[in-house]
């Protein structure tokens, strides 16, 4: 089977970020999307800690220790960028001003439910951050994830067993095997990477996949 690397998944997602979009990238793999947006598109990135219009990572030695993104990585500002406090930052999310949010996931259900903040463990502490605000507020929610957990169990399932981040919030899923939309009828395959067959991908999925048109 063809399995995309995290970088390839991010690059595929980046193709769907249109010119002029206001985009929030979540912690981890989603951050990589910014490195692959096709040239010529002007995308304005929002980070929950209170910044719009940030750019690439700084050259080593030129970091501003106060200037970071949600992943706590150093960033630089683009001309036109702005700073604001947390209440404004999350007002932008809940208020529907962010066009696209890209998040990671523990599980996604066929109805668009997302679980990505808690494994329900008594010992391992949960961490929600801005995920629930992004889930309800962004106009479109993209998920970037491996198709299965490390042990091979599906992340795409009929019903999430982990606690939900948001109900019916995901629009599109980019995995290492395929691109899949959430529709009224469930998981709709948009495309499969390389020569991957529907049967192969279906075997690693916990709910029915609708074949690509």
């Amino acid at each position, binding site marked *: 089977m063809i399995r995309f690397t995290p970088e390839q998944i991010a690059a595929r997602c980046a193709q769907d970020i249109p010119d002029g979009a206001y985009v929030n990238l979540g912690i981890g793999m989603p951050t990589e999307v910014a490195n692959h947006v096709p040239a010529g598109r002007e995308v304005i990135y929002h980070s929950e*800690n209170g910044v719009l219009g940030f750019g690439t990572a700084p050259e080593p030695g030129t970091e*501003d220790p106060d200037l970071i993104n949600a992943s706590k990585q150093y960033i630089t500002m683009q001309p036109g960028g702005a700073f604001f*406090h947390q*209440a404004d930052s999350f007002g932008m999310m809940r208020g529907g001003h962010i066009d696209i949010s890209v998040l990671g996931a523990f599980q996604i259900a066929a109805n668009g439910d997302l679980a990505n903040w808690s494994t329900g463990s008594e010992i391992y*502490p949960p961490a929600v951050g801005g995920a*629930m605000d992004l889930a309800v*507020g962004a106009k479109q929610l993209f998920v970037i994830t491996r198709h299965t957990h490390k042990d091979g169990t599906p992340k795409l399932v009929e019903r999430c067993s982990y606690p939900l981040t948001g*109900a019916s919030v995901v629009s599109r899923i980019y995995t290492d095997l395929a691109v899949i939309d959430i529709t009224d009828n469930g998981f709709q395959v948009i495309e499969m990477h390389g020569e991957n067959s529907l049967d192969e991908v279906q075997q690693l999925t916990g709910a029915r996949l609708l074949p690509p048109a």
Partner: protein
Amino acid sequence: MVNKIVDSINEAIGPISDGATVMCGGFGSSGIAFNLLDALLEQGARELTIIANNAGVGETGVAKLLREHRVAKVICSYPRSPGSIWFERRYEERAIDLELVPQGTLAERIRAAGAGLGGFYTPTGYGTELAKGKRTEVIDGVGYVFERPLAADVALLKASQGDRWGNLVYHTTARNFNPIMATAATTVIAEVSEIVELGALDPESVVTPGIFLDRVIEVDQVFV
């Protein structure tokens, strides 16, 4: 004459009683009042409730308070981060209570307290475990959760510049929770990298007006 500038860090932190609720500005390691947090540790208050986005990493700030058993409860959105060993240890030992709050709800609850509001309805968390036991309402077809205001006894802030009236400006993303926490605590204390003459800050650009501040101290910046 109004003069909120104090000369020593001990004078800045002042008396903080056992059981106090303390808001700490910051996101990641940006915008944290490390000098004031060290002074709080030195001062000795116990059974603290800490309100902050994160629960401290390494051996700095809130992590040190957790290490020294000064914290009874943490109210935050993202306590688990790479290096948050003291939070994780105390959580595993069940030595602390954790109130996990979605980040935007945490910010808005603080803002509500500072703005004199009795709470608000938010769509964030509706239908999730974090809304359990809370009042809900469907408004124009959208589900909302009622969230209460969140105030504190003390807020510890970091800013880049301040003046004797307590006006503050911040540096880049070190702004984060600081301006809203400034509005929501009984006693508000800021450490600043530079104290400037009254009138030096452009009134158009002041982010936190001095009315919210009680004490301002100039410190050497600490980065971790």
